[in-house]
């Protein structure tokens, strides 16, 4: 394992990434590398820059300084590099962002057909495969508004998987869900993790972090404050801010 990690360059690497919103320094010198198959949980208080960080990886946000490399492709702001990276990176949003005027199946087939030029037959076969995997194939002909929040989020996961990405980014995927629906989405994510998907998850679900994360990263004020294996992270956090944060988060669970 160690050898193979050395042989292969990291799947994602961020070096000294800086981002400002006007005068607000949103990301301060972020460096992070993610190996293939690794599962990372990003947590931290709101406004700490964790969502911004993962949104920079697939160029939904631009960065002012530093380098981002995904699967050997340097993100240099060119359309070509953005396209190449978005082909490898899937994303799931807090508010699902399914296309409301399309059925579940159409949501899943659009990108494979338009971006990869797949035929409708192939795209639908692929879509059914991944809808089956998130256990929602029976709803394929419905529209998003006819589904519960948990079901919609599982469709969103399937939609991203249909592009067969090498990495999945999750931006607070359970934050907009009613409590009784959180589990079905987390279970789907756990399944994905077990199958070896490389994942970066912004989430406050500490149970999920304990169960699947290889590393937990704590961010505050745009900086990475602490990162550790979940065991160490939860048992003996080093920094005062991490302790305070964990105290608050765990008190609510």
């Amino acid at each position: 394992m160690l050898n193979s990690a050395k042989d292969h360059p990291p799947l994602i690497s961020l070096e000294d990434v800086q981002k400002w919103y006007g005068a607000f320094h949103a990301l301060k010198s972020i460096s992070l590398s993610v190996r293939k198959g690794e599962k990372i949980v990003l947590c931290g208080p709101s406004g700490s820059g964790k969502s911004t960080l993962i949104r920079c990886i697939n160029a939904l946000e631009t960065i002012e300084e530093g380098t981002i490399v995904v699967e050997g492709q340097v993100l240099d702001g060119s359309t070509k590099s953005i396209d190449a990276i978005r082909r490898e990176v899937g994303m799931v949003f807090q508010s699902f962002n399914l296309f409301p005027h399309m059925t579940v199946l159409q949501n899943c087939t659009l990108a494979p057909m338009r971006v990869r030029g797949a035929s409708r037959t192939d795209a639908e076969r692929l879509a059914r495969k991944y809808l089956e995997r998130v256990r929602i194939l029976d709803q394929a002909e419905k529209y998003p508004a006819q589904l519960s929040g948990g079901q919609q989020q599982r469709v969103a996961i399937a939609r991203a998987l249909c592009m067969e990405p090498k990495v999945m980014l999750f931006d607070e995927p359970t934050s907009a869900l009613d409590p009784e629906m959180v589990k079905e989405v987390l279970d789907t994510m756990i399944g994905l993790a077990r199958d070896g998907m490389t994942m970066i998850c912004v989430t406050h679900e500490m149970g999920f972090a304990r169960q699947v994360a290889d590393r937990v990263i704590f961010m505050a004020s745009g900086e990475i404050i602490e990162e550790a294996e979940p065991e160490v992270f939860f048992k003996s956090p080093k920094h005062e801010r991490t302790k305070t944060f964990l105290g608050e988060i765990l008190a609510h669970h």
Partner: protein
Amino acid sequence: MGPIGEDELFFLMQGLKWTVLLAIVGFIGGGIFGILIALLRTSKKKVTRTITAGYIGIFQGTPLLMQLFVVYYGVALLGVEVNAWIAVAIAFTLHASAFLGEIWRGSIEAVPKGQTEAANALGLHYGSRMKDVILPQALKISLPATIGFLVQLIKGTSLAALVGFIELTRVGQIISNQTYRPLLVFGIVGAIYFIICWPLSHVGSGLEKRMAKAAR
């Protein structure tokens, strides 16, 4: 006073035909250019945004009649020989493209930002993002306002009478001059406009209510 007989009614129907045709041409032409205006108005480039904003500003800030005159006499000044029909059709197309462009600009911007982000994250390019994701939703949002504008446009075609285009209102004028029954004739003309426009308005406000309900 002369009677209003079959011939007069037939003449009115002829006028109505041109009114409807002019409205359809203006609406379709305006629709095609309007989409273009809306896309340019929402583009990333500041130049195109500024130019289209100016275009919209000019057509929204001047009377339709003035626009008709300018195009009608302006086209003639260019040395191009065109009949009233072409000149009026061009004027209405320009007019409608500015108003529809602005309506659709607003609708495009009303589609939640998450839709663009999801499309981007999936790697969809501008063309597909607009055609498959944003415009279908924007069109739905814009339907009440678009229908409202269509009603305005249908009534606005009556101004074409002033440059000699023989449509419903102009026909009414002619018949009124022949029969000396202005009140009756324009009563009938008004009723015809109403029969066309009122159901459209009704459909528009119905859609608006339905969408307001769906948004809650």
